[in-house]
């Protein structure tokens, strides 16, 4: 067999093995056709969502007196989006909501991954029980609960002491967003922890891990080199679900904290009977979720070669 040569694969390379053994060990490229279909599907779904939601909102607001909606008097007029065009209102809503969504997503990923690694790496049963229990509680209680709890706590402190510890609510106060971010973070963080932990635990029983352990690899190196990369796809999927959960909770969380983002904008638009704005914000949520799904599909292929086949 002729050796070397710029165009010839070297011995032992995936191409050589493929030719000699008949098994394709090459890392396949991204499955562009599949991704193209996924993109088309997302666009078609978005179009359908836009049509359905707009029709539904138009019909609903035509049949109810928007000024008499139960939340109309509570949300009041439309100051944050006053004198703005629809596009500008959506842009303002997106930028304000991003202040909550992006940190919530990053923090939940960080907490979820770090606690999962700690759970797998630690030998302390107490720590494991504590982490698992906290995650179970976190996954069981919705953002609405955390938001409400913090809201009431803050009110209690404020009415007792007269001090607004964190002036994060009050639509006209550009207060800081710590409370809504915490409320949005806890459940996705717990969900990421539970998902990644389940994969890590499963991988721990894999033959390649046992083989690596038998060859003397340290537990830390096992987790870092073998277990974590195998859980990347699951973590990605959990992050996608987390983003879904955060965006889904956005309207009620922003309503509780009077945070003038897209979620509050949606309720506000309904309350004042603005069909265009309500439909725009509803479609905006759909766009974010569709983009997240598509990005997740691309990244899953990038992270996990098995997904490309």
């Amino acid at each position, binding site marked *: 067999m002729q050796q070397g040569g710029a165009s010839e694969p070297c011995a032992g390379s995936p191409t050589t093995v493929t030719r000699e053994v008949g098994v394709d060990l090459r890392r396949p490229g991204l499955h562009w056709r599949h991704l193209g279909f996924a993109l088309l599907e997302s666009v078609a779904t978005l179009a359908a969502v836009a049509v359905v939601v707009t029709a539904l909102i138009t019909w609903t607001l035509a049949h109810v007196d928007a000024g008499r909606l139960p939340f109309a008097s509570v949300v009041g007029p439309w100051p944050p989006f006053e004198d703005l065009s629809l596009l500008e209102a959506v842009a303002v809503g997106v930028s304000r909501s991003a202040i909550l969504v992006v940190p919530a997503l990053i923090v939940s990923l960080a907490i979820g991954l770090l606690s999962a690694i700690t759970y797998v790496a630690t030998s302390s049963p107490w720590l494991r029980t504590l982490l698992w229990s906290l995650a179970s509680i976190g996954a069981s209680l*919705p953002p609405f609960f955390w938001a409400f709890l913090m809201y009431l706590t803050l009110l209690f402190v404020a009415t007792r002491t007269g001090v607004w510890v964190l002036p994060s609510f009050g639509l006209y106060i550009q207060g800081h967003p710590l409370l809504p971010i915490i409320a949005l973070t806890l459940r996705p963080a717990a969900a990421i922890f539970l998902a990644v932990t389940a994969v890590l635990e499963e991988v721990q029983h894999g033959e390649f891990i046992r083989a690596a352990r038998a060859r003397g690899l340290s537990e830390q190196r096992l987790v870092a080199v073998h277990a974590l990369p195998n859980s990347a796809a699951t973590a990605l999927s959990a992050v996608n679900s987390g983003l879904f959960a955060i965006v889904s909770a956005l309207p009620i969380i922003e309503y509780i904290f009077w945070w003038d983002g897209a979620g509050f904008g949606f309720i506000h638009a309904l309350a004042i009977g603005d069909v265009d704005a309500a439909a725009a914000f509803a479609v905006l949520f759909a766009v974010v979720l569709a983009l997240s799904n598509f990005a997740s599909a691309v990244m899953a292929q990038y992270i996990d070669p098995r997904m490309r086949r």
Partner: protein
Amino acid sequence: MYGRVSDLSRIVANVPLMIGMLGLLLIVLLALAGERLAPHDPFVQRLVVFYEGGRFTTPPAPPSERFPLGTDILGRDLFSRVLAGARLTLTLALVALLIRTVLGVGLGLLAGWRGGLTDRAATAAASVLAGVPQFALALILALALAPYGVVGFAIAVAAVGWPELMQSVRREVLHLRRAPWVEAAVGLGAQSGHVVSQHVVPVLAPQLVVLLTLQAGAVLLLLAELGFVGMFIAGGVAYYGGEPVRDHTPEWGQMLAGARAYRLEDQWVVAVPALVLVGVIAVLNLFGQGLRAASSPHSPLRLGPTTMHLLSRALLASILIGAAAGAFVAFRSIEIDFAEGLERAHAAAEKVEPGYRLVAGVVRLDAADLVRPAKLNYYFRSPNRRLLRVGFAGADANAAETRPFHDEDGIHDLQLMPLGEWSVEWEAALAHAETLGGSEFREGYPATLTRVWLMQAHGWSHPVYLIEYSAASVEGRRFLRIPVNALDVTAPIEFSLVPTETLIGRARIAAFPRLERGVITAIRARYVSEPGLRNELWGEDGPAGVLFSPPTPAEVTMRFGDGVQSVDVHFDLRAGFFLVPSGLDPLVLPELSESIPVEPSVQLPTVDLAQAFLRLEEAGGREMREQWKAQGHGEWVADMVILVEEARLVAQITYAAGPLERQLRLELDSD
């Protein structure tokens, strides 16, 4: 192998499952017996909440020995409402869960098993619905379906969650289709329905139970979120255009409504239902997590296949049977007729105080529909002449309201006597009235509202239906009232003119509830002279000579500070008021005024308005009036207000006579 003992120990060691199971038992108990365990009537509103020793506060009242979780802003006991609300809340959740299950599992099985176009269509529908946040979509749907009451609300809550369920089931079915036992059954020629029901669904059962448990939590969460923004099933305290709308059957989501409109100090009122809801959601989610751990192949808490299948089938059957039974009960009891309403109203009145007797029944009908009542109202009077109204908005058994001292229809109960026997149904009376000019009136005024009163005034020898047609027109409000004999629609009405047994001025109690807590800031007596008779019952069209309404010589108003919302709340049993005979000079009031004590154990803080008035008169009022009279201003009006200022009772009176006005103040001894 998995023995029963080891399975039992695994169940005990599965903490989330154990907490979930105990919690579920408690929830089932709440749903079945919650209303009976309630220490107070959950419907009774209180203008003032009284405690032992004469202490009192305006609602919302904080937790106390009498009201362990406090009261809402209408003075209704929160603990009783939480208990009584369990049935409707959980029924609604189960019904929504049932619809989600039918849609999600049915479409998931269909899409996963059949594949092809069916799969694509179902998946596309699910993707579209899942593309919008559940809360946002449910909010739009709840608004759109609001006219359809409980059914519409259940559909709105159910329509948004099923895509997740469908996708999970579809994924599993796609996987199971390739299972050897399924392929073997297909190979042997079994029908698709048989294979799915016998070989796919049983394998899915454990996961289905987990999914349904989590879905139940999701439904309740949606109820809470919708309730918080004011969308709920059975009325409650919501604010529509700044006006409070209050009523109806307790439901946990509804109890969260209007929180944003409360004062900051009163926000804790919504904490009670919020914590209850979250507790139930947590129980359901913990149960789901525990079940997931029990069915996961890698979990140390996994149960044996036999136990898991038994458990999952039992749970699945319980969920489905419970949901179906709940749906049957909830939907069956939605619409009630006059007789059913009367039966329920009697029971409600008995709970408030035994001895109430029916004095009137009113059927309200919208312009567009003369068949289905827009509201049923039943009026009762106690031996102590206290009025009680029990109403059912939309003739809906779930929309009950019980309000003491509330006359929504202007029945003027004091002119009425307890109803005797009647044999004609209201529909027949209405039909007869239609032939006597009712239909012509409605044709002339399309927006006519119709009310059918059943009543028996003093002097009537039998009950009478009074059918009132009313419409707004450019000439003002138009009325047509047609009396119909309630024993025989064609027979004339027999009555004899007798004097009403006591001419009593109507005491009006108004309150302004959203004010400074715990302080009655004013009790106002307005002395006006309005001689002459008003025929309020019959209007100008009534038969000549039937005059029952007394003049209104005095109006007594209890005010609770400077209200933002002026809402009449004629209800509290313990709100003492004064009965003032008609046609008398205010100066004669001392001998004739009285207050009505209700609960002997409660010391009612009363102020003798007449004494206060006399003292103000003696303190310069009378002298001043005489001076005014000498100046040619003999007619006067005096508004007296009893104020509570820094724990002192102060009487303040404003005399007015023509352009003259003067105010006097006097400190009183509280009694």
